[in-house]
């Protein structure tokens, strides 16, 4: 059997070669760059030790991006799962036209976030923006939606969530359909109400679905990039940057490639740790239920 296992390990080879060349090597080089003051294009640079990492401790822009990244990650995950589950519960009933709703909600998942961001810009502009036009109809004063970093972050989280809520929705729909009717029948005999039914039967049995949905949303949210660059460009100032967009800007616009590499590494570690904690927790939950 050992030999068998060894032979099987050869199956890894193509994948591992690709990883070695296009992930590990650049990654190691990135670590090296994070200890330099390279500007991103010149042929020369100096080693600066851990200065880049020290600088991060006091850099307001990094702190803000860190906070925003967590908001994008956790916020999107919460919104998508709550809305996704709600939509799934709604669509799990029998009524006409439900497939239309399902199609429309899932459709944006197909569309490049970059394009979605550009389209959303037509909604949020101050002059002639679609949202302000609606406010105007009701005689309300126009709002400069993306002018505040806090509101901008919230809007980006919501846009990202609404675009991808379809994923959670279909996962939960499948999960709901996988729950055998007999559980509900038994519950009906025991005479429990619908709220109890949801919390004691539906939710626990959806655990595998929750776990998948949370993982997908969390990684997606923490890596958010395209939609930010299309909608706010990280602005006003640095206020809606995620770590990804901050790395991009630090690297190219401010010409601090060394520093950007350091931020990139830290954001990798952050995403890794955060996702692992959540995954471990969900795995344990799932195992408890089995």
């Amino acid at each position, binding site marked *: 059997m050992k030999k068998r296992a060894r032979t099987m390990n050869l199956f890894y080879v193509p994948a591992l070669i690709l990883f070695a060349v296009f992930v590990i090597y650049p990654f190691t080089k990135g670590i090296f760059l994070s200890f330099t003051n390279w500007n991103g294009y010149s042929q020369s640079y100096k080693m600066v030790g851990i200065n880049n990492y020290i600088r991060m401790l006091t850099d307001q822009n990094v702190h803000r991006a860190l906070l925003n990244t967590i908001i994008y990650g956790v916020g999107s995950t919460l919104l998508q799962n709550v809305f996704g589950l709600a939509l799934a519960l709604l669509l799990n009933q029998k009524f006409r036209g439900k497939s239309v709703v399902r199609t429309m909600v*899932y459709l944006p998942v197909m569309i490049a976030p970059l394009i979605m961001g550009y389209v959303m810009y037509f909604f949020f502009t101050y002059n*002639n923006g679609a949202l302000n036009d609606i406010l105007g109809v009701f005689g309300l004063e126009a709002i400069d939606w993306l002018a505040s970093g806090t509101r901008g972050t919230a809007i980006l989280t919501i846009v990202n969530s609404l675009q991808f809520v379809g994923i959670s929705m279909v996962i939960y729909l499948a999960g709901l359909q996988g729950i055998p009717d007999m559980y509900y029948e038994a519950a009906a005999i025991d005479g429990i109400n619908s709220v109890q039914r949801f919390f004691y039967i539906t939710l626990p049995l959806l655990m595998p679905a929750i776990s998948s949905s949370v993982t997908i949303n969390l990684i997606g949210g923490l890596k958010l990039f395209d939609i930010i660059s299309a909608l706010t460009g990280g602005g006003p100032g640095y206020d809606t940057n995620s770590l990804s967009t901050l790395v*991009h800007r630090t690297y190219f616009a401010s010409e601090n490639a060394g520093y950007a590499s350091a931020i990139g590494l830290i954001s990798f570690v952050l995403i890794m740790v955060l996702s692992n904690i959540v995954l471990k927790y969900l795995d344990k939950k799932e195992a408890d239920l089995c």
Partner: protein
Amino acid sequence: MLMKNKKAWIWRAPLLLVILLVYCSPFYILLGISFKPVTDLSSHWKFPTLPTLENFRVAIEQGNIFTALKNTTLISVIVVLLIIAVSSLAAYPLARNRSKGNNLIKSFILGIMMVPPLSILVPLYSILVDMGGINEYWGIILILLTYELPQAIFLYTNFIRSIPEALDEAAALDGCGPIRTFFYIVLPQLKSVTASVIILTGIHCWNDYQFSLYVLQSSKMNTITLAISSFFSQTTSNLHAASAAALLAILPVVIVFLFLQKYFIKGMVDSAIK
């Protein structure tokens, strides 16, 4: 029972209406702007009184949208084909062997899923330059392949785990080595999960922006996201043509999705729940 249904409709109907409105509005607005002449500055909600095809002409001529569609299709198809081969192979030992080393590989692959591509962009770029992969289809194909692999490997691994190992063991007893076992026993059972891989990877490749931006610099190599972003670029004032281009770019996906919706959703669900 009838009474109950009626009651349900009272809150359900408006709710559904709101959801539909929210989800239709981006498409409606995109459509409206695409057909409006550049000089028409009326509200985005107002559909053009004099629809024009001018924006589409500009989009097609200047944006090379058709070339972009062709490039994107080619790249996506090849990446998808390669990914099926490479990831199903790698998934097999990952699903079957339970050793420490294997766990290490598993967490390593999970880790790759989380690497923000930007943090390694420049080293990655210089490797490609050394290999001569800039502005080449194979350059972007290899990169997309690599970064889409983890997800596909996970899909396959989960799926293969759900195939009873007894089958493999029986095959082994019959004298089948792992290679024959994989090709004769495992592979034929992977059809449905392969559909999921095709769909998920296909969409990611189709929508990729970050990698293509740096690898495909020649305008003849543009993919759709690149074509669109250059339209929305900082000094052009032609948002109408840009919208028209965006519309052309999403049209194929939307059509394919509407026709094969069942498979898309099944793919997504299969990939998530196992």
